[in-house]
């Protein structure tokens, strides 16, 4: 199985599913030079959001710890620990802030 991310040009294959550890993320370099953070939760569901932490500007969200609160998956930024909902991109600790999300899916390896 591979993990695919939807970008402007269509579905982009980013890595084999086995490269993801449940509960951890990886960073992906997108064709336009921007970065996404892709995660796997414990149930094996993939999520993708922007990799840049809006509070510090550093591209580090992929390195945060994944958790679940009120049934929703989130990642906590490794820098100052703000949490971001992995489905909506909303920051759970500051209503005004959000990061972008990407559609992501797993597909059989070609």
């Amino acid at each position, binding site marked *: 199985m591979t993990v695919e991310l939807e970008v402007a040009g269509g579905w982009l*294959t*980013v*890595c084999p599913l086995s*490269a993801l*550890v*449940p*509960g*951890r993320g*990886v*960073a*992906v*370099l997108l064709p336009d*030079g*921007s*970065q996404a953070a*892709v995660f796997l*939760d*414990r149930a094996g569901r993939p999520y993708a959001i*922007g990799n*840049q932490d*809006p509070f*510090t*500007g*550093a*591209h*580090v969200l992929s*390195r*945060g*710890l*994944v*958790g*679940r*609160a009120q*049934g929703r*998956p989130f990642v*906590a930024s*490794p*820098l100052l*620990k703000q*949490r971001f909902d992995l489905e909506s991109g909303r920051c759970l600790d500051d209503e*005004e*802030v*959000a*990061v*972008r999300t990407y559609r992501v899916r797993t597909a059989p390896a070609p």
Partner: protein
Amino acid sequence: MTVPEPLPAIVLIGHGMVGQRYLEALAERGATATHRITVLCEEPRPAYDRVHLTSYFSGRTPEDLSLTPAGFMERHGIELRLDDPAEHVDTAARTVTARSGRVVPYDVLVLATGSHPFVPPVPGRDAPGCFVYRTIEDLLAIEEYAKTRSSGAVVGGGLLGLEAAGALQGLGLATRVVEFAPRLMPAQVDEGGGAALLRTIESMGLTVHTGVGTQEVLTGQDGSVCGMSLSDGSTVETGLVVFSAGVRPRDQLARAAGLAVGERGGITVDARCRTSDPRVYAIGECAQAVDGRVYGLVAPGYEMAETAAEDLLGREKEFTGADLSTKLKLLGVDVASFGDAHGTAEGSLDVVWSDSRSGVYKKLVVSPEGVLLGGVLVGDADAYGLLRPLTGSVPPVAPERLVLPAGAGAPVALGPSSLPDTAVICSCHNVTKKAVTACATLAEVKKCTKAGTGCGSCLKVIGQLLPAAAGQGLCGCFPYTRAELYEIVRTRRLASYRDILDGHGSEEARGGDGCEVCKPAVGSIIASLAPALGASGYVLDGEQAALQDTNDHFLANLQRNGSYSVVPRVPGGEITPDKLIVIGEVARDFGLYTKITGGQRIDLFGARVDQLPRIWARLVDAGFESGHAYGKALRTVKSCVGQTWCRYGVQDSVRMAIDLELRYRGLRAPHKLKSAVSGCARECAEAQSKDFGVIATASGWNLYVGGNGGAVPRHADLLAQDLSDAELVRLVDRFLMFYIRTADRLERTSTWLERLEGGLDHLRDVVVHDSLGLCDELEALMADHVAHYRDEWAETLSDPERLRRFVSFVNAPGAPDPTVRFVPERDQVKPDLAVLTVGGAAR
């Protein structure tokens, strides 16, 4: 002059689990002070946890299994004679003769001789390569012999046989089980349960023969085991045979002494555990209880021990029988049976759920009036903790709702709150729900009722019964404090975050992903207990990798622009010119910013994730190790130059600092730890601002603890004075392990010490005077840590799999992260924060 009356003499024969419990029961009741007690012990070691014997193969040492608290015998004036079994009892003369020839007179004799494994009388059963499975010595012998063989067989597919089979498989042997009955675990499970068990066990790679007997153990030319012939006419090859065909009470001593024994063996006792001679008691597996049963389980044995102790003091307590509930972790399969599991009561009805695809089988036995009588659970014994206490009452929901899997239309709405107050929650210590709910915390439950301190299978329900007061637990996922979780992990030997979360997390958190608060805390608990749990100490193995903060995950410190800093260990701050040069060269070649830290080390800043392995390859090559600057672990032990160079110095502070730093390197703790050693009272190393600080005196070392720099500075307290080198190390061992065990998440030693009830005096009682009897355990844990320490970076570099994570981008492993950039400042680099100004974020 008056001659003091001699104290009445108690002789205990057999120092097994029940024997030890008896001694503790006497001690708790003050009877050790009023009696002279002698224990004759056949084995070469004091009592140990036989129930968890098999965990020896998953890394527990015989010392870990010990059940005898250090100093217990001395404290209570008990004479323990190891390796000296009783050979003869003379009830008329009231003496016991031991193998050593010693004759010990008694006023009260207690037999706790346990049982011995039954070996069916098949030819060849004594050949080299045949074993039984009962003592630590048996395990050591099996382990040694297994090294020379590639296959093994277990005769007997009962509870112990399967446990032994799991152990053989774990030793790398192709393993088969031969069971005479038509199903596995015939005594505990019924046909349906046996079938579910069989499928699961076969899927684990074991070969199972049911309904066949062993006819002969075949031997090769050298006389050792090479195979077996079975009653179905077949012959199988095997290099080793373990007999596990049941146990027989060891009643020979009693028989020879003329005491009454049961028809099928077992020393006959009354409800007060007295034999046919009222001066002689028999307890545990060697006894046949008043209900005519010989109990092969530890909980009834413990109750008999209490009964005999009460009776000795003239108090009333009776043991009239116990239920045979068991919950087992066999080869990773959950199996539990309780109450009338076979439905022998008149008119009883079964409710059965069976899913052979997933190996799950659940059966409840109920009376026509709906009273729960017993049950069998295979493959998913989660409900055991609740169902056992419900036995004997009408469950608050229909029985079928108790066995259907969650999500199959009928969710189990039953929580522990629905249990009656009289329900027994902890069967090891006979503690009711009422007694549990009278306590506020797990620690209190354990202290006041002992519940949860035996087999641990009740901990989960206890956790659910305790108030999950907000702010009390670690986080939303766990109703426990860190210290309580530590105890759960330790006593239940859980090395998997998932098991801990699913088994002990709050209702909502189970099955979920946890959170950023409890994951690192649990990761740290597992890391600090790893050797004792038989888990990998490498913090990034398997699931543990997902628990670590980014620092621990990349074994480096994350800095504000997403780059990392690297800090090699420089023990005691002492470094050679050659090593200094290597650090300089590495920094120059990778363009890193260098700074001497407050802890006498050199920090290298500005490394990208993908550079870390190459940087560390050079450092490791030059003899450097990880300084754990990233972890909640020991950071540095600073030192002054001490006696070697300084004209005031009275001890070699550098040597001591290096020794301490090397001893505690890699030790995971609730908070980072710092230390220092000064060579005299002038205190140039600032030892009194450290978690533990050492200051030399003319006659040794003074140890200070609980100091703190940082935002809330605190001067350390003097714990002990004028210690020798060895005494100092021993005290620090105890102090650190006691802190790790009882502190909260992110609680520094200073706040911990201030929170500790009784403060410094209490701490001193515990670690210096051993008031809790914990010190041996604390020292053993530290010894484990020291023995298992391996440098994390050397380990990482040696494994290409582990190195694969050190890339900036999963889809472009070679590409550096373009946003990690630097600009010059004072002849070095600093982060280019301009490139980080937030672009697309909706701020």
